[in-house]
């Protein structure tokens, strides 16, 4: 069977998408810290960059890996090497996304939906953030909702991914008007309004890279 069938991608072929995730976070690390610096302690890029770079090295050493194997390595690296909030939040996010792909060797739209749902549940289960708290949940929730809606409307996997990407970006943009309720930025109260949320920004980059990687491979 080929890598992409138009409505699914083999997990083996999707493994290298992990390098795209690493690349975008490492490349945008400065911008992420800058965003965090406006309301938090300015280290989001440093934390993410360090973790993703380490995961990249481990993945390169691994050589061959499927999408869930890669996500598990990334999650495990974040849990093992990144403290603070981001290590456990993104760590459990990626770990649980990997587990959602346990019973398959191809990823199709229902699997993607399940994966996204698992990741969001992990983040909320651990961090208790609700939509509107100005966190990465404000990207994940609209992204999931948009993907599910697109599916219900009968859109293709690729089109649903495009809709999700747009929703993630809109979700990120919407964090600008929110007042932070959790995390370090919450100390600022009203003063946290007017800037993007750093975790929401990194989450948007991750979802976009994931969507782009899958779309590319759907027709490969």
């Amino acid at each position, binding site marked *: 069977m080929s890598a992409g069938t138009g409505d699914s991608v083999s997990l083996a072929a999707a493994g290298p998408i992990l390098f795209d995730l690493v690349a975008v976070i490492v490349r945008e690390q400065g911008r992420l810290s800058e965003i965090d610096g406006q309301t938090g*302690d*300015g280290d989001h890029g*440093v934390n993410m960059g360090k973790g993703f770079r380490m995961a990249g090295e481990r993945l390169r050493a691994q050589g061959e890996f499927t999408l869930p194997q890669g996500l598990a390595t990334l999650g495990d690296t974040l*849990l*093992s*090497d*990144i*403290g*603070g*909030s981001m*290590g*456990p*939040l993104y*760590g*459990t996010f990626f770990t649980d996304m990997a587990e959602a792909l346990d019973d398959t060797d191809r990823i199709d739209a229902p699997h993607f939906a399940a994966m996204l749902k698992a990741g969001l549940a992990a983040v909320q289960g*651990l*961090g208790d953030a609700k939509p509107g708290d100005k966190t990465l949940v404000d990207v994940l929730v609209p992204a999931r909702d948009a993907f599910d809606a697109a599916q219900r409307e009968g859109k293709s996997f690729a089109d649903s991914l495009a809709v999700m990407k747009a929703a993630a970006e809109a979700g990120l943009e919407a964090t600008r008007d929110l007042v932070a309720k*959790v*995390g370090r930025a919450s*100390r600022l109260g009203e003063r946290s309004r007017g800037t993007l949320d750093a975790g929401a920004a990194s989450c948007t980059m991750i979802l976009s890279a994931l969507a782009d990687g899958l779309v590319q491979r759907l027709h490969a």
Partner: protein
Amino acid sequence: MNRIINDPEQVADDAIRGVLLAYPDILAATDHPRVLRAAKRRGEGKVGIVTGGGSGHEPAFLGFVGAGLCDAVACGEIFASPTAKSFHEAFKAADFGAGVACLYGNYAGDNMNVKMAVKLAAKDGLEVRTVVANDDVASAPRAERDKRRGVAGEIMMWKAAGACSDEGGDLGQVIAVAQKAIDNTGSVGIGLSACTIPAAGKPNFTIAPGMMEVGIGHHGEPGIAVMPVETARGMAGLMMDRILEDQTFASGDDVAVLVSGLGATPVMELYILYSHVDAILRERGITPRHRFVGNYFTSLEMMGASVSVTRLDGELDRLLAHPAHSLGLTVLGR
């Protein structure tokens, strides 16, 4: 930056290397570079006590590992929670077959990493129960106690729980004692100057000369009031008002008191502060039966101090008097 460091990114690891070289009789390395255990391993069947938190609070957290105190510690970057993996490894290092009590402070990162680590330990079949310290009465109203930060009062919790474990208490008893210790402890800090994380190179908050921040957190978290610097007597009054109004301390109560410098305050000034804390307590008929005055829980080179008061019952009184030996605290026993 006028600091004694090499690579600013490596400060936490470099410090751990140094403390292991300096105190091999008290602290030992584990397979995980950010996890230390007591050098003298305790016997099988003892409840393991674990703590952990960001670096930069020395002697906390690693300075409270030792006889009669914690068995293992997970160390984070400066002012940042240790990883879930570190907590998990610390649980393993403190596993003597009777379960592990993880006693830490209420910060978002620590809560999440501990929660993940407890899950990981459960997969190994290791039972870990937690108590999260929330003694900083200035960090949230009493009705939102679960939002309060853990500060120097954690030391009372470690001391009581460590002694209970030493006495042969089981996991349930150790957890109950730790919870009782922290529930009966109130703390307040006053900040007099900011501090600088080496990797950042500049302070990420400010306290103006001549001003003080009442209720400041251990990482510079905003307090409840910024006001002109008071006398030592005035500071003690402000802090004790907050602590004493938060719980109903009554005439006749026995308490333990801990006055900790935040890093740069001369120790003689902590003694001055203590004299007023002592007077305020005695005026109300409250007797300070255990007194700790020094640099116990710091915030790098921040100026200022914190006061913690624990109401005692017979059990806590006995447990606090139990012998202990670590870098940060030695109690010879009565």
